[in-house]
């Protein structure tokens, strides 16, 4: 597997560079501009794409292909690759379609990657709350789409595990156990939903990877990860898994008491990018949430990716043009103080 940071390698400051920076900093009044330019040139940068889709009647395959093109994902890069799409299917109920990634967005992503020459595209999820993954698939409407398109689906909760060293070290977990499937693909794509979250503030492309961790080992609802800390687990999973791409379904998102009990809100966007913290930070701005106030994004900043607006090159729509404030609940601690000013 290649890493998502292939294109924007994480810079590290040597002690000498740091000393130089400190010395030069003393003369910031006269040389501040050059210092800032030098400093920003060493910072992680990323590109995100915002596509407009007012309803689920949009042509998502076309929109996602456009986004991939804008983000420099070429057919040469995708040709022959095995792609794993990880939608967000936590606890869907037939009448509550705003909980999970919409099946037509999943279909659009499948078609887009196949169009670029992917050797295979599989969809996989390990629902966090429900033991009956097949029922989750049916109630979400995704089963029909996958069946019609003959797209394979894998239940990540029950898959044999692959235990590797935790590269994040934000939790006390020395190792993480992923489903073996992640070793058998070339690209892992988070196909997330734009939602508020009552424990994490917001659940977007990074938090979506809780669903990769097999319930067989982590329990339902991923008890081990809740025990060692949700923000910390998000960081460790993403640092170790090194996902390659994210597409966030914000056509209809969830505001208020997400990720299950909130209410639908039409944001009318798909947000895409190679760098997941940058994608999630952009989503937060669209939701009128300050990404610096989301603990896992704050800690991911300049480690797993950039979250500062100035370091994220925006393609497609401007986040300001599509900003749709998501309702927050004052009584929920994770929602307190996160509103973007």
């Amino acid at each position, binding site marked *: 597997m290649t890493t998502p940071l292939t294109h924007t390698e994480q810079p590290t400051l040597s002690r000498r560079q740091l000393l130089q920076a400190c010395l030069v900093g003393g003369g910031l009044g006269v040389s501040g501009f050059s210092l800032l330019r030098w400093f920003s040139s060493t910072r992680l940068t990323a590109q995100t794409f915002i596509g407009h889709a007012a309803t689920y009647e949009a042509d998502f395959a076309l929109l996602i292909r456009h986004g991939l093109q804008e983000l420099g994902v070429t057919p040469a890069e995708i040709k022959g690759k095995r792609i794993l799409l990880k939608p967000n299917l936590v*606890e869907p*109920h037939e009448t509550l379609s705003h909980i999970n990634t919409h099946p037509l967005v999943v279909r659009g992503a499948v078609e887009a990657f196949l169009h670029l020459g992917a050797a295979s595209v599989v969809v996989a999820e390990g629902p966090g*709350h*429900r*033991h*009956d993954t*097949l*029922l989750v698939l*049916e109630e979400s409407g995704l*089963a029909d789409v996958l*069946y019609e398109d003959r797209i394979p689906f894998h*239940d990540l909760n*029950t898959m*044999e*595990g692959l*235990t590797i060293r935790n590269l994040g070290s934000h939790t006390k977990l020395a190792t993480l*156990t992923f489903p073996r499937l992640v070793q058998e693909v070339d690209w892992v794509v988070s196909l997330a939903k734009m939602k508020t979250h*009552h424990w994490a503030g917001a659940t977007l492309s990074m938090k979506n990877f809780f669903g990769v961790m097999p*319930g*067989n*080992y*982590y*329990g*339902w*609802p991923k*008890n*081990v990860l*809740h*025990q060692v800390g949700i923000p910390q687990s998000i960081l460790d999973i993403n640092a170790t898994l090194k996902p390659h791409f994210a597409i966030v379904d914000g056509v209809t998102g969830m505001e208020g*008491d997400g990720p*299950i*009990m909130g209410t639908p809100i039409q944001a009318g966007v798909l947000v895409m990018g190679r760098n997941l913290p940058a994608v999630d930070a952009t989503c937060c701005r669209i939701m009128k949430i300050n990404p610096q106030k989301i603990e896992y994004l704050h800690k991911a900043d300049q480690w797993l990716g950039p979250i500062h607006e100035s370091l994220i090159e925006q393609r497609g729509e401007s986040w300001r043009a599509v900003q749709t404030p998501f309702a927050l*609940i004052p*009584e*929920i601690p994770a929602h307190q103080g996160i509103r973007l000013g």
Partner: protein
Amino acid sequence: MIQEPFLHSLERMKSVQLPNGGFPYHAGEEARPDATAWAIIALSAYAFDRESCNRGRAHLVSQQAKDGRLSISPAHSEASWPTPLAVLAWQESSQSHEAQSRATDYLIGLTGQHFPNPDPSISGHDTAIRGWPWTADTHSWVIPTGLAILALQQMGLGTHIRVVEGQHMLVDRQLPHGGWNYGNTFVFGKELHPLPESTGVALQALAGATPIHEVQQSLDYLLHELPHLRTPLSLGWALLGLGAWGLKPPNTEALALASLQRQERYGPYPLPSLALLLCAVKASQGLHSLFNASPREMHSPSTHASGARSFFR
């Protein structure tokens, strides 16, 4: 007389048994304790192949840790949730008594993390009542607690303090409008949604020990959901949960056949789900009725269900 699709399913199950006696989750994979236990319970219930069951039981014994637990894999000893399934699988075999006894002792000693609820406005249930966790050092939840209760009931420990407390936990986790979620009731003041699989397990574990009026709304919820259930896991547990209260629907076989039919769409079901569904078809009054030796200290569920409403009459 076993209907052909059920017979075919039993044969399929037997055909994937591995040389070491274990059964895989899917054909072609390595043996897993949960799949092995469920296959044994189903094959044994239908008296399908005694030798195959005995080989399966011996495999489970070979996988048991010294402290009695059966974990999902040797590398993940903390995930010991298959232990009660092994206790049930060993139930019909005199050769597995020692292993079964050690597993029972392990279950009695195992508890999730429990603590006084720091803020009931955030999480609505009583976090201090002990049950069983999916994996060590985490909180107790509905399905592993229900499975542990079923195993201990089969061992004649239906009035053990851990079983009684576990049942108390399940009652506490019941949703006010009926049914069970994975184990929360209210989070930030909102009542969560019931799930058929959790509800079936909980009802099965409470049958014979809880007055029917305390679970009537949950029975009503399952009866309402039942006609819509087609997946083997949810349908299987729903049938067992209702059956344990004397409410096994007369169209059980038709529901199960419809579920099996859907393998044409989805491919072969995982072995544990398939076995569960077959058990639900065979069981006259819940899971316990599959075993020759009814658990001691259990009351007849039918006497408690006499006032239950059924949509099937």
